[in-house]
């Protein structure tokens, strides 16, 4: 894990460099163990549109699956979707909670209601740890944490031991709640130093200052009355301006009644203004009071934040647990809304999906249109490779993708879009679906395809699922058929026997069924009536004979002349192909594996040629051991060039 540790260190160092030093909320590091998750290859996440649709107007799987009510749940779900599990126990743990929520809709809805009031606990508590939280947010945190106790109680009272286990992982955080309730005002402002943040009864100085600030007017009135009585000046006033602050104003008539200790500050036409020691002291108090209040409140607030910060660990754990519950309970809502069922997982190698549907496409259909469900069965003996032929737009790609999507959904703990599903755990899913030009980096469609397929064939395991859609499309027909044939053969003969769905245009591949017992042909049923095509979208055994490309072209509006000529050409080619087809099926399939092994030295690779020539002239009888090792070293260097 050396490289990983270095990478982790880099991240932390970067935080330091960007002056983010208050990071107590980064409490632990977890390892993403590749042995625990299903290996989705680099194209699968994109091809299956798990997180993002392939085009702007599309919909991704996450958009359909996300019925979470908290932001933490939404984020966790995204993680779950790219990291499906391989371990039956963990998956079933999740599934049982979903099942519980499905059977107890009332309790479920109650919990979801509580969850809705919780908001983004995760991000709030991180802000607390970084001391970047304002009073309003802190009060929000308080409200969120208060929802935990009722949820915990609900779970403890359920009869499900898993939920009781979860309940015990939740912390009530009563200390935090009490502390915040005591110190923080119920509806604080966003700033911490502009007042109205801290409750009364928390700090003596603060309370006193408040009295002064708030009872200012009363005090002044009192003072005014006092002075009026004492001096007998009935029209005495106390007022304030920015230049002199507070002052006593006396009209000229009463000038002589002014006591000696008053200090004259300002003379006006018909009045005089005085200040007194008492008044000035009071003024300092009041004006200073607001500033001081601000400073005291800010300090008390920071103390509160730091105190709450001690509980970061507990609250983070709560957030994690609640996010899980949000995800799992939302799966139950999903299952109810979209009619999903609980998948049966086992350690075997068979996949059976009865009446399975494509979870995303079925939600995009118009009201009234139902998605046509299909049964899909794959195992290692009878039906390891399904060759799926059929015209364009018949739904071949959809069928491939829905198989993978249902399996992924099952292995993240959600129910699936089938009436019944028995799934032998899959550990790797490979897809090669659809053409993708990577012209910007100088690769053609075919190059990309071959690269992707090569990476697949070099990495299969006995629990892999492979989806191949239109392999060999980007090159000439004969090349394409040959490559597709060889790939299908390779997969069939590979000791791991990975389950494969192979959608293709090449009807020649239907002949594979005759020579390989674990390959089966299927096609998607369509009907032709009145020169029009009706897509029935039902999976049926057997290869399809016709490719309805010309019909589709006609539907698309191609000129009549083009259609007519195309039909002519087709009949001509088809008769040629029948002759060719006979030749292919009478030959004993493709060259045997043994032939292929020798081909390393028959390749037209100049480097290997040069090595071969060298080997042929070596005289082993006169070669010393050291010379032999040196020669080997030379060969290695040549190969690495």
């Amino acid at each position: 894990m050396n490289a990983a540790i270095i990478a982790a260190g880099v991240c932390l160092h970067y935080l330091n460099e960007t002056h983010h030093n208050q990071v107590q909320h980064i409490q632990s590091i977890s390892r993403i163990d590749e042995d625990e998750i299903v290996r989705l290859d680099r194209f699968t996440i994109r091809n299956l549109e798990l997180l993002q649709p392939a085009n702007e107007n599309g919909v991704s799987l996450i958009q359909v699956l996300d019925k979470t009510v908290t932001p933490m749940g939404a984020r966790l779900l995204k993680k779950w979707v790219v990291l499906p599990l391989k371990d039956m126990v963990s998956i079933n743990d999740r599934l049982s909670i979903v099942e519980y929520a499905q059977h107890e809709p009332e309790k479920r809805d109650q919990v979801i209601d509580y969850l809705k009031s919780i908001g983004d606990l995760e991000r709030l508590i991180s802000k607390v740890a970084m001391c970047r939280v304002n009073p309003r947010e802190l009060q929000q945190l308080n409200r969120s944490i208060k929802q935990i106790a009722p949820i915990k109680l609900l779970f403890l009272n359920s009869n499900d031991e898993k939920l009781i286990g979860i309940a015990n992982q939740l912390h009530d955080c009563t200390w935090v709640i009490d502390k915040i309730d005591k110190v923080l005002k119920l509806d604080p402002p966003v700033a911490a130093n502009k007042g109205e943040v801290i409750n009364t009864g928390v700090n003596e100085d603060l309370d006193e200052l408040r009295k002064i600030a708030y009872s200012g007017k009363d005090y002044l009135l009192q003072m005014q009355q006092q002075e009026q009585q004492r001096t007998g000046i009935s029209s005495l006033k106390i007022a304030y301006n920015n230049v002199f602050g507070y002052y006593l104003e006396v009209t000229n008539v009463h000038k002589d009644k002014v006591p000696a200790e008053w200090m004259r500050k300002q003379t006006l036409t018909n009045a005089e203004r005085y200040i007194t020691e008492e008044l000035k002291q009071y003024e300092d108090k009041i004006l200073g009071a607001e500033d001081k209040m601000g400073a005291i409140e800010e300090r008390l607030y920071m103390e509160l934040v730091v105190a709450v910060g001690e509980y970061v660990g507990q609250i983070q754990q709560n957030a994690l647990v609640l996010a899980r519950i949000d995800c799992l309970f939302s799966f139950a809502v999903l299952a109810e809304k979209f009619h999903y069922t609980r998948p049966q997982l086992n350690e075997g190698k068979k996949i059976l999906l009865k009446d399975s549907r494509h979870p995303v496409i079925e939600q995009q259909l118009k009201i009234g249109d139902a998605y046509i469900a299909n049964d899909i069965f794959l195992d290692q003996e009878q039906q390891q490779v399904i060759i799926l032929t059929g015209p364009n737009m018949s739904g071949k790609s959809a069928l491939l993708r829905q198989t993978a999507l249902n399996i992924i959904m099952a292995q993240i703990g959600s129910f699936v879009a089938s009436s019944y599903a028995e799934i032998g755990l899959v550990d790797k899913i490979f897809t090669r679906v659809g053409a993708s030009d990577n012209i910007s980096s100088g690769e053609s469609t075919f190059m990309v395809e071959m690269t992707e397929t090569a990476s697949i064939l070099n990495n299969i395991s006995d629990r892999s699922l492979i989806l191949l859609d239109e392999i060999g499309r980007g090159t000439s027909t004969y090349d394409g058929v040959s490559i597709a044939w060889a790939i299908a053969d390779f997969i069939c003969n590979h000791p791991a026997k990975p389950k494969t769905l192979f959608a293709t245009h090449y009807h020649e591949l239907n002949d594979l069924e005759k020579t390989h017992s674990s390959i089966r042909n299927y096609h998607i049923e369509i009907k032709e009536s009145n020169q029009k095509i009706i897509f029935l979208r039902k999976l049926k055994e057997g290869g399809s004979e016709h490719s309805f490309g010309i019909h589709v072209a006609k539907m698309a509006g191609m000129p009549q002349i083009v259609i007519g000529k195309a039909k002519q050409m087709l009949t001509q080619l088809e008769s040629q192909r029948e002759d060719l087809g006979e030749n292919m099926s009478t030959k004993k399939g493709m060259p045997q594996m043994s032939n292929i092994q020798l081909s390393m030295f028959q390749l037209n690779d100049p480097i290997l040629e040069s090595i071969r020539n060298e080997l042929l002239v070596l005289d082993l009888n006169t070669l010393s051991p050291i010379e032999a090792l040196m020669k080997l070293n030379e060969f290695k260097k040549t190969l690495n060039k």
Partner: protein
Amino acid sequence: MQKKEVAETPLMKQYNQIKTKYPGAILLFRVGDFYETFGKDAIKASQILGIVLTKRANGAASHIELAGFPHHALDTYLPKLVRAGQRVAICDQLEDPKLTKTIVKRGVTELITPGVSYNDKILDHKVSNYLAAIHFEDSRAGVSFLDISTGEFMAAEGDLDYVDKLIQGFKPAEIIIAKNQYKQFQSLFGDRFYMY
């Protein structure tokens, strides 16, 4: 690129000292009630934020571009800069101007980058915002993901395919690579990511 024979004002001197430490970021320089940007930063800022680009005297006769906004508007403008992919260094006044006779001390208090962000206005609440780091070692690589807004911290190690898959799945906002490993990164990821 020093071509300053003209005397610099003390302010600009201070600015340049700080700016050399953060060449790749937009430096928000606090001057009184305003955060100001100078030179190329100002041009970028004025374009991204739609604020006026003006000039300030810089020693005798020479001028330097200037664009700024009041400090209390930081929360309005900062997210826009980050969303435009810019790194932003915030340089505050470190002492009370009333207490010093010479130029007030200034220092960078925070460097905001797309991967290190916890401002609500920049983040999408449904999406985690990851900082990632990759370290290549022969044919394997180690990768780590850190979301500062939630405290999530994960690490993994595996072959290049596995690392690629994780990067695709987590979609980090920012990836850190050692300078001498740039080539390996590019061969793996091509031009998919914007690089500094």
